[in-house]
């Protein structure tokens, strides 16, 4: 329980809560990288997923990409991109984007693919054209899966942004890296606890988001799917 007491003392230290190396500043950095990475990834993956899901083109490629990406070691991807592009914020964000695209893309693709064909027939029967079917029927129905993909990607991005401290940027990973360098176990554990909290908050945020965005008629479906 010694570890626990030291951890509490570490969090209670007012010096932790101010300045450029303080917990608020580090958390803000972490959130900033993660948000940037996730946003860029979503801007790439969601439109592509919608189009491939709607047209059915590239389904095999998407599936293969998903399997391949699942097998990729995240730290390998991060370190390779940083080594190729240099140290700094941009390579880190590129790596985060590369890791966040596959789950979002696959979930969007699958979400659109899995829309009941009877619904699509009904939409066409009502006189909707292709793009209308996509935006007014398939997208709303796919929202639960899309958000699921976004959540998965977000948690992954938050976790990987931690490792980004190894390549010399800020964020909560700094506590872990600096703690390791100083042989300061409490600092390492404090950083880990903060990352856990951030990941849990992220998960809750997306749970709230799906409550907000999923059409009421789909909610029972979404609940049973998860």
């Amino acid at each position, binding site marked *: 329980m010694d570890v626990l007491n030291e951890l509490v003392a570490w969090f209670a230290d007012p010096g932790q809560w101010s300045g450029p190396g303080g917990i608020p500043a580090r958390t803000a950095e972490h959130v900033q990288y993660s948000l940037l990475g996730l946003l860029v990834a979503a801007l790439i993956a969601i439109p592509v997923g919608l189009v491939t899901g709607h047209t059915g083109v590239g389904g095999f490629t998407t599936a293969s990409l998903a399997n391949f990406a699942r097998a990729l*070691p995240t730290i390998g*991807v991060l370190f390779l991109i940083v080594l190729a592009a240099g140290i700094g914020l941009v390579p880190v964000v590129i790596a985060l984007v590369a890791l966040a695209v596959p789950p979002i893309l696959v979930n969007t693709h699958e979400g659109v693919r899995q829309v009941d064909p009877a619904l699509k027939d009904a939409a066409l029967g009502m006189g909707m054209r292709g793009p209308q079917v996509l935006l007014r029927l398939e997208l709303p129905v796919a929202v639960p899966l899309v958000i699921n993909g976004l959540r998965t990607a977000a948690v992954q991005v938050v976790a990987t942004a931690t490792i980004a401290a190894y390549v010399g940027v800020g964020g909560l990973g700094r506590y872990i890296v600096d703690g390791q360098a100083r042989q300061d176990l409490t600092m390492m554990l404090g950083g880990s*606890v903060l990352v856990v909290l951030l990941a849990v908050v992220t998960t809750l945020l997306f749970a709230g988001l799906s409550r907000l965005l999923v059409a009421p008629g789909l909610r029972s479906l979404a609940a049973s799917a998860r």
Partner: protein
Amino acid sequence: MNAVWDWASGVVDWAVANWSHPGDDERGVWPRLVEHARLAYVSILIGLALALPLGLACVRWTRLYPPVLTGVNVLYAVPSIALFFLMLPYTGFSDWTAIVPLALYTLVILLPNVVDGLRQVPEHVRQAAVAMGFGPLRRLITVETPVALPVIIAGLRVASVATISMVSVASLVGLGGLGQLILSEGFRRQFDAPIVVGIVLTVLLAFATDALLVLAQRLLTPWARSGGRRGRRHRAAVPAGEATDADAGTDPTQTADSGNGARPWTS
């Protein structure tokens, strides 16, 4: 094109030259690959050993399932890198620091598949076994588990690929098999060849394990191969994301979660 070729052959040369150092088990690519496979396989097996009894309990006492599933999912939201560090005060730098979190992460995939697999055993099959005088234990081992096997193996495939790729993160606490190659040989020395070799071997190990599980399923469920139409549809272990329209919804052994690529990703 030539530059790419030179670069690739340079990477291969490095891997060959550093494959193993006789007399020094700590260095080289091969020992790292073995360590990686050991950490991943032990974690997956422990996860399976936990998921089977837990899944049975959840099928037997249905009210147990929602809270257990929620608990496993909450645990899954914890990033692996944080969990590895949080293990340090308890397990130090032993293999358990990597194995305990990895085994717990597999539960989020394995547990629902075990439960769904067992629940999908048709009632008439169960009743036939009862009528033949099978007791609960014998029925479980000789009838229900084999029928549930395709779904369980489908979960194992997703879990093993995810686990194998996650082992690398444990290199940050000094474990991590091929991750060590990526971190200490590659990144700390600003040298790309070990990183590429580490990534490629991790992916190859994941795909080889996946292929082994497919083979295991074919050997363990011979009835699924013979017998035409139904048999074909029983080949449930389509890797996540490869489910075609035809078997995504209709296959009785395919859970919605195991085949549609919408599985949670591991970090």
